[in-house]
């Protein structure tokens, strides 16, 4: 019997396509205003009139801004994974990225914890940027 598959990332805009193709190449891409340097993901317009931001590769370093732990599954594809975390990491460039923390116990996740991106491949071949405690060994 096939198990239900996880939702795929949504490719609704050019920005989505650039970002997710970067992820496939193990690069974390964010937009940056060519005028003031305001960095965001997904793109958030700043007050500058400069139309096209540039894509820059983020360092992959950040810290946990907040996190939650699902003790029940709201989607059948996640039923076998509970309890599992979803976290928001603030990249050192500024933007908040939704992700999961891996490489440590749930009980050890802390707001403010320094983390580093890991390009994590799911069983279905989907690659997701996840984050592990910075300084830990990982296969990123």
């Amino acid at each position, binding site marked *: 019997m096939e198990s239900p598959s996880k*939702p795929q990332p949504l490719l609704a805009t050019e920005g989505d396509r650039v970002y997710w193709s970067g992820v496939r190449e193990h690069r974390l891409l964010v937009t940056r205003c060519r005028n003031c340097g305001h960095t965001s993901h997904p793109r958030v317009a700043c007050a500058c009139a400069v139309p096209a931001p540039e894509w820059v590769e983020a360092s992959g370093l950040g810290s946990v801004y907040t996190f*939650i732990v699902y003790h029940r599954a709201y989607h059948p594809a996640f039923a076998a994974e509970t309890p599992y975390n979803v976290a928001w990491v603030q990249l050192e460039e500024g933007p908040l990225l939704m992700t999961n923390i891996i490489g440590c116990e749930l009980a050890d996740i802390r*707001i403010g914890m320094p983390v580093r991106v890991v390009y994590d491949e799911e069983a279905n071949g989907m690659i997701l940027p996840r984050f592990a405690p910075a300084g830990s060994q990982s296969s990123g």
Partner: protein
Amino acid sequence: MSIRDRYAFAGVGLSRLGRIEGRSATELAVDAIEAAVADAGIDRRDLDGYIYQPSFDGGPEGTAPLIATGLPANFVWQLQAGSTTGISSVIAAVGALEAGLCKACVVLYATSAASHRLTIGAGMSAASSWGAHGFFAPVSIAAGMAQRYRHNYGMTDRQLGQVAVTLRSNANRRPEAVMHERPLSIEEYLAAPYLVEPLRKYDCCLVNDGAVALIVTSAARARDLRQLPVYIMGYGLDHSQARIVSDPNGLWHWDGFDVTRAKAAAFGTAGIDIADVDVAMMYDAFSMFLLAGLEAWGFCGRGEAAAFVADGHIAPGGSLPCNTSGTALSWGYMQGFTQLTEGVRQMRGEGGATQVRDAEICLVTGLGGSLEPAIGSSMAGCVLRR
């Protein structure tokens, strides 16, 4: 000319609330409308405006309630603005009244979510990139806010639980409340497992069937009808397309709400300031939203709301009674119409065992937002007086 005090609520009609098998949202809507017509003592031929919000189960079937009740309806507006829609419906009704497009307007919410066995919002992010990471359900946003609040201010689970316990105590004293018969102690709250940590089921709104209809009309017409009018002093809205919780420019952050412009508009039109509010309805789909609302609207400072609640300030005998029916957590969830209805009833003196004595001015709040990354957030406030 300012709208202050020129429009009023003239009628309130409520269906039964709870799991009501065998009655559709349309039938519950009819119950509520008939109750409102009887309450107001209005000739239904004069009830010629109709605004309703579609609910999570789809709500009433189009204009079927109009056919059943024989209301004339010069216009039929289906209005969707998340849980600012209770207030937004009133704003739209006043606009239509001001333009002479109707004499009196129904604003309505009806749902059969419970008998449809819905888990509200569970599928919301299945089609977005958030679902790929396992993010689902609106409770997740409140949970992430509560986690930040714990980190920023040291809030304990016992403190957070006082929101649910206080509101349940209110509902226990209101016979029509869904949770009227079910007391909740802090021990029972803490014994419940986390759903989306750090929130538990008692931190989440009810899922119930029910309908409410309110009649908005001119102050003059309201004074000629059966009930004492509840005057609309002012209202305010704000919206940001900035992505919810991830954009620093938005109205909805992990660290709280931004109601600066909504408050300035509502209080400015009403001619009041925060000290004039006698009773308040914070939007409480989740306990954490009530805490964030208290701080955002200015009833206490940032970081003080958990202690404010734990110290009893929002209880009916406290310094700032809030959510006196038990609202979304314990009375019944009808999005923003829950808080609006209790605000109107408090101003009419119909709060029963949780009526705030001598309450003259009430602030009703609402908010809206989508979990899909592309849509922003809205904040709303409405000031009422008796």
